[in-house]
């Protein structure tokens, strides 16, 4: 069964909504479904969209102030007491500032604390490099026991939040600030650990996570005009990686491109390259930030400036295809 994409996908009036808005709805729904769900915030309640949960379940909402180390360690204690704590802040601060506390009291301690990192990526925009978290995927995916999810749009963020509430594991969910196109539908599937082929193709596999999946769909459309038939795969779960889906697509196309709104080193693309290098070695092009920090600017402007817009990526991908032979087994 093929993935149901939003029929308005490429129209001018495609629905736009911040991914974090879906998180806010998902958390409230998770709170309705399970009385053990609690929420903690570090003085960014509306910004991270936790106010929907707070207003519905005041007793289960805990304001910890601007104290990210305390945020996750208090959550660890709540988890020991049988609760399912969601902690939210900007990704630059959590997991940016409190990584050791996450490592020891959540990951090693193996408690089902949910780390919600909002405002990830350069699309934070004018706030600049300090607030544009780009290293979080790398930081979180190297932790044993940790699940890492970067939803592609607000509808998926809602589903991912509900799924993570019930997975019983330490988990990281990565959110973006800016409004982005909604490419999935209410009927689209979401399961932790699953990747989804959005569009089939034979010349190259384009693997996207988070906000980059929509940009890859745009890139694939442009590539089609050049006669390049790209397969677009959405990979919302970075850990555990859906190795079967990725391998099947890579085997078919023989070339892989990854895209993430994060450092190209150590993150999603690296996870894919690590997997393929030991399974089916082939050329892998990783698109992301190339060992530099972001800067202030308008979100769309920055995405384009740093080579992560559909248009810029189409160019990068077509050059990659020209340079690299298509890998075939045997």
């Amino acid at each position, binding site marked *: 069964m093929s993935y149901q994409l939003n029929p308005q996908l490429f129209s001018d009036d495609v629905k736009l909504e911040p991914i974090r808005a879906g998180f806010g709805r998902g958390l409230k729904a998770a709170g309705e479904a399970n009385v053990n769900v*609690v929420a903690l915030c570090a003085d960014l309640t509306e910004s991270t969209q936790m106010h929907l949960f707070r207003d519905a379940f005041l*007793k*289960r909402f*805990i304001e*910890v*102030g601007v*104290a990210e*180390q*305390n945020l996750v*360690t*208090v*959550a*660890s*204690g*709540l*988890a*020991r*007491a*049988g*609760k399912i*704590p969601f902690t939210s802040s900007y990704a630059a601060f959590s997991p940016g500032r409190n990584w*050791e*506390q996450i490592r*020891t*009291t959540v990951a*090693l*301690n*193996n408690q089902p604390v949910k780390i919600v990192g909002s405002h990830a990526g350069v699309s934070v925009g004018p706030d600049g490099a300090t607030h544009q978290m780009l290293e979080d995927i790398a930081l979180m995916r190297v932790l044993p026991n940790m699940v890492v999810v970067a939803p592609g749009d607000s509808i998926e963020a809602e589903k991912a939040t509900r799924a993570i509430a019930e997975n019983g594991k330490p988990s990281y969910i990565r959110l973006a600030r800016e409004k982005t196109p909604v490419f999935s539908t209410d009927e689209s599937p979401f399961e932790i650990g699953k990747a989804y082929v959005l569009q089939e193709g034979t010349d190259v596999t384009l693997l996207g996570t988070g906000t980059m999946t929509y940009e890859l769909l745009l890139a694939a459309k442009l590539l089609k005009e050049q006669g390049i038939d790209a397969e677009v795969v959405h990979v919302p779960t970075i850990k555990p990686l859906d190795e079967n889906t990725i391998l099947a697509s890579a085997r078919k196309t023989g070339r892989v491109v990854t895209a993430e709104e994060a450092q190209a080193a150590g993150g999603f693309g690296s996870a894919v390259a690590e997997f393929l290098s030991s399974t089916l070695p082939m050329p892998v092009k990783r698109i992301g930030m190339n060992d530099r920090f972001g800067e202030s600017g308008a979100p769309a402007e920055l995405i384009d400036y740093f080579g992560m817009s559909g248009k810029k990526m189409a160019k990068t991908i077509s050059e990659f295809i020209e340079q690299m032979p298509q890998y075939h087994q045997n």
Partner: protein
Amino acid sequence: MATLTIPQIEQKANDIRRDVIKMLAAAGSGHSAGPLGLSDIFAALYFNVMNIRPEEPEWVDRDVFFLSNGHCVPVQYASMAEAGYFPVEELLTLRKLGSRLQGHPEREKLPGLENTSGPLGSGLSQASGYAYSLQYIDENPQRFVYVMMGDGELNEGNIWEAAMFAGKYKLSQLIAFVDRNNIQIDGTTEDVMPLEDLKGKWEAFGWHVVEIDGHNITSIIDATSQARAITNRPTVIIAHTIPGKGVDFMEYNYKWHGMPPNAEQAKEALEDLRTLGGQITHEGAGV
């Protein structure tokens, strides 16, 4: 567990010290001073203060204990073994491959541990999260949350974030200990990073503060009773202790913070402990 008399608890503290020396000597690495200094408090907690069932570590009505200064875990392991959580013989596996007794405590490895710690500064927050859950979500006033911190550990900012948090929410089921032994790795606490006025600091954060001789079993028990009776604030018990307590050549010497005794030193230490018997509580605590 049957209620023990004060002299019996003092004897338990001495048994715990003996276990600690043996464990550390067998392990060949680990911390000596802190665990010996804490033996009286742990004996009081595990044999009088806490409502626990060693044979049923996950008992839903239990009191919980969080160790924040994870490097002192030998004293917790020894207390747990003496209380019946696991066989005393297992103590000699400390720090060895395959052991449940990791060099720093790991909750998932050993039933009865409530947290995983080692990197300093996070235990008070975890205890606060648990206490918040009891007080505000479960609305269960019957259970208490105990946490042990080192004094050197109070250099960590995370501790003061938790102190603010517990003060704000008036977590009255939270009972914290500070092991005020005045030493840390690089020297005395007041040389490395002064903590005084320590009582005033906690009070300013909204806590009820009790200062005790951390080697006097009666004082320890009384302080915790008082803490449980205070229902509008968290309590911190600043327990003045002697690092290395009970072993003459280790007492007051910060060099024993991170060192185990060798075989010869262990023998001497055990002889020291035998002569002390149940009399150690009558000495001053160097307050």
